[in-house]
């Protein structure tokens, strides 16, 4: 078992625990950054997709995982970021300005939404954001002069410092762009969590009443959480637009919102790792299903016809299994396995037991 011996208070708020952990993550980063040399173009594209989903997951994780506000409508912000990016690019703004600006604009949109949403709790907020996501579809169609409506918009490559970055033409450059954004967002997230703001997010999630008693301004905290979450999702949306190349009002449907929420639940709510692990599941599930279908067809000689809705059906079953047996998601399971090894033979069954509470209503009649 590894014991970190602390000799300085700064060690408590350092982003990494010790040199060993830092090394581990640097190696991981190096391996992923070198992916173009050990993956072919197809799987590199898939990996890029996973990273984009992970960025979107990080965005939602700020709001749902760390501030405790369940949103079923983040596809609306993905769409906002995507369209903002494209419209700015079409207006002749260089990518290096348009891309950050798209995220900032999405964050501002998030604040506008947050103002009425601040009064809503739990399921009401979920329903509110879900309605928002459904409305976004219609809004994109209605705003046809700007958004291209049902016909949608197209986005080719962009130029950064003279290099062409294009999903199809130069997938390697595009992968590095996405990896860079993912890394910056993750670093920002880690820093957020060790700053007072991130701590107050967690305080609001765990108990609004106690957070208020500790002097946390709940409305302000939730608003900032919305803004940051939406800004990150805006960037993810902009990257998604560049990844798919063509998109219209149906690209960012309410199903994407639901998928995003389910993704971070599978990965593990309230952890940065969770967003990445969930994105891996989402990204590779379709590939895995088609490969296993071929395998089943080859072994049993059965038909390999496409079963509509199979992906979502399997996805739903995985999710139910996770909520029943591992509410803390993949990352929670990993923590348990790691603790088991670290503490061997002293791991006990109830070490990660969650506290249960009796429900009480807010309705009084």
């Amino acid at each position: 078992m590894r014991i970190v011996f602390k000799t300085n208070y700064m060690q408590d708020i350092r982003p990494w625990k010790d040199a060993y952990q830092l090394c581990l993550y640097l190696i991981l980063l190096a391996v992923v950054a070198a992916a173009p040399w050990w993956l072919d173009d197809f799987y590199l594209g898939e990996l890029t997709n996973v990273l984009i989903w992970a960025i979107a997951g990080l965005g939602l994780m700020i709001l749902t995982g760390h501030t405790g506000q369940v949103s079923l409508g983040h596809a609306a912000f993905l769409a906002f970021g995507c369209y903002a990016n494209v419209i700015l690019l079409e207006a002749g703004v260089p990518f290096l300005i348009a891309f950050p600006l798209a995220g900032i604009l999405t964050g501002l949109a998030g604040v506008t939404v947050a103002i009425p949403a601040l009064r809503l709790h739990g399921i009401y907020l979920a329903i509110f954001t879900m309605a928002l996501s459904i409305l976004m579809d219609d809004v994109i169609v209605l705003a046809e002069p700007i958004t291209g409506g049902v016909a949608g918009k197209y986005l080719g490559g962009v130029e950064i410092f003279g290099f062409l970055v294009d999903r199809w033409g130069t997938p390697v450059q595009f992968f590095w762009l996405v990896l860079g954004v993912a890394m910056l967002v993750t670093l920002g997230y880690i820093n957020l969590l060790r700053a007072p703001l991130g701590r107050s997010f967690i305080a609001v999630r765990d108990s609004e009443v106690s957070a208020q008693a500790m002097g946390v301004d709940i409305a302000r905290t939730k608003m900032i959480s919305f803004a940051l979450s939406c800004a990150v999702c805006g960037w993810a949306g902009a990257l998604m637009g560049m990844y798919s190349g063509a998109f219209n009002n149906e690209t960012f449907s309410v199903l994407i919102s639901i998928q995003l929420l389910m993704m971070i639940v599978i990965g593990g709510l309230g952890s940065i790792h969770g967003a990445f692990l969930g994105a891996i599941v989402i990204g590779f599930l379709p590939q895995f299903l088609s490969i296993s279908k071929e395998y089943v067809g080859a072994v049993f000689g059965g038909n390999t016809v496409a079963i509509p809705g199979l992906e979502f059906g399997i996805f739903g079953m995985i999710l139910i299994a996770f909520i029943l047996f591992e509410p803390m998601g993949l990352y929670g399971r990993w923590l348990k396995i790691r603790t088991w090894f670290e503490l061997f033979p002293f791991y006990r069954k109830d070490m990660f037991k969650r506290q249960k509470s009796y429900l009480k209503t807010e309705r009084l009649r």
Partner: protein
Amino acid sequence: MDNAQLLISGLANGCVYGLIALGFVLIYKAAEAVNFAQGDFMMLGAFVTIGLTNTEYMGLPFWMALPISLGIMGALGYLLDRLIIRRLFGESQTAVVILTIALGFVIRFAAGLIWGHEPQTLQNPLAGKEVRFGGLVLGMEDVAVIVVTILLTWGLYVFFSRTKLGLAMQGASQNQLAAYYMGIPVKRVQGFIWALAGVVAGIAGILFAAKGSVDPTTGLLGIKAFAAAVIGGFGSLPGALAGGLIVGVIEPFASRYIAAGYSQIAPYALLLAVLIFRPNGLFSQVRVKKV
């Protein structure tokens, strides 16, 4: 006269929304959880009845298939609680929300696998009959929907406010610990309410399938029923019906009088407006939040 016709068809649609919303409210009232799969439950109820009644499947007589399919739906609701939801006892509401969304996906997938993805209609004795009422032409199914919904809402309302079991359910949701102290078997009560919600979903499904066609994605109608439940204030049974009627009536009028493209927004815009200005619904039950 035209408007009256629109109003009637809107009311009939609204009753279906109201019935789904009733399912939401039932579970919310007794278990303080929200079943996001209620719309898919309705779709399942419709398909179970179609599977029992329609000639290309089992071909049972309609009135015999009716109680059987309602029984199946009740049993499914109970099993769902017994096998899955009960394990989440004491966890946050969010867990149940996410679980039921996932369940909706699974139900949609299963229904597509069993009954296919083609839209189907329920063969029923009311089909094709009409009622003429002072120049208005009403389909017999529409009349049946309206009558059944009103009776059901009234019955459930009386059940909740008068009977011992109904009061026990309200108690079980308002304060679980106190309900235990009073000797209410909270978990069994919750099992019962999920079964009841299954039956209500079955009724909604049968009425919906008699009125029009169903396919596995019909369950997404549940989103509109959310609007109904929220407008009525989650937790109020007559409110759910009223909310359903409002949404149902707004739809045909919006598509007639508002430019195309804007009309389908109407129910959701209303939902957002209600949530913004009256976050607890028009028939609110929340007074002041206490610590």
